[in-house]
């Protein structure tokens, strides 16, 4: 089946089988391997991307369902230098192995779009669909707080990353 999608600002046309999952289309047809497959059962959030601005698990959506829609992946985040979220994860040691990070960042970007100044609880609630096996989440929360301050035009508080 023919589909048209705009991915990180670039239009793509592809001819795919309806059973192709969006995550496979992104990784294998477009070679954008920043979007990861962690569980393949809709639980871990590693495959999170933005579909028309909404965070979704791309392992649970068919590529044909993205026809005529826009997709944003981690590769599109650094278009103008590092995105404040990417900078936040870097500054605050929000990652260890980095496997969950693209999904975390894509999810957090929708969270901050809907709620520019979330509380710590709201951040924890907001990333409840994303699992990280490495960091214990504290530094991830700080990374998102950093980005939230920066995107609101404030100077992010300097925090001590926690090593766990």
């Amino acid at each position, binding site marked *: 089946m023919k589909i048209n999608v705009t991915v990180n600002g670039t239009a793509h046309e592809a001819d795919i089988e309806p059973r192709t999952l969006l995550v496979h289309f992104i990784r294998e047809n477009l070679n954008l391997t920043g979007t990861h497959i962690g569980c393949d059962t809709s639980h871990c959030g590693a495959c999170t991307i933005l579909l028309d601005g909404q*965070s979704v698990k791309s392992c649970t959506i068919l590529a*044909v369902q993205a026809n005529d829609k826009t997709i944003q992946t981690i590769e599109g985040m650094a278009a103008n230098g590092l995105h404040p979220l990417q900078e936040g994860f870097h500054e605050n040691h929000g990652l260890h192995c980095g496997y969950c990070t693209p999904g975390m960042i894509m999810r957090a970007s929708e969270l901050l779009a809907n709620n520019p100044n979330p509380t710590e609880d709201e951040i924890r609630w907001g990333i409840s669909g994303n699992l990280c096996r490495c960091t214990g989440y504290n530094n991830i929360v700080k990374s998102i707080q950093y980005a939230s301050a920066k995107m609101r035009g404030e100077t992010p508080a300097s925090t001590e990353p926690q090593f766990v």
Partner: protein
Amino acid sequence: MIAQSFNYEAPHTLTEAIHLLQHYGDDAKILSGGHSLIPMMKLRFASPAVLIDINNIPGLSDIIIDGDTIKIGALTREVQLEHSDLLKEHYPIFADVTKQIADPQVRNRGTLGGNLAHGDAANDHPAVMLALGASVIATGPDGSRSIDINDFFQGFYTTALEQNEVLTEIYIPVPPDHTGSAYHKLERKVGDYATAGVAVVLTMDGDICKNIGIGLTNVNAVPMRALRSEEFLKGKPLTDQNVKEAGKLASEDCAPSSDLRGSEAYKRDMGAVLVRRMIASALSRVK
């Protein structure tokens, strides 16, 4: 994991969707949020030959008040239910239930209609709809018909929807004065299906319980109402003694199975505890 091959149709009108259902018969399945269906297809528990994606059909995701009825389109997503001012005003139970369904990404996709049509007793909306006294609107080749929610869930993953019907709307009554509602489920971790869940919608007349609906989640093979508990409480004051008895009746009437989430006895006990707590919670919200 990749599903078996299928054909994909994405009609732009309801009429076209119903034609496609008629045309393909038992081989076809509707695709709404896909967050129950696609996982099942990936595991090959379901292998429909045709998927009819209804997401391009306009008008299926509105939440409106029409007289004494609140009408919710079947394609309304969890995230819309969670943030609807209209629902917040009338039924806090919707904020309770949506916040407890899965996680934000799943709630961006999953729909109310899909949650009900799936017919899974582990899903949260069925119990809420039973407590609310909802009706389900099914649209087929001969037009629309209304199905009382009490007749909707017919068995394990089986509902009263005919093969050629699309669930198009859910109707719930605008609450009478002095109504309160609440839902809570016991879960092992955020986003898990319920160990046990209870929905309560009650209307008071002074100190007397005038009307009450109690729906139970995941403690029976089919979504169920705690009918004896409801009958027991109607016309009575909600004293500790009476509420306790209602909890006991519900725990006797449900039929949970022992699994990784707990033993049968534990789930019955949790059912009783949650009935008591949700009655208290709904009562505290009466307005």
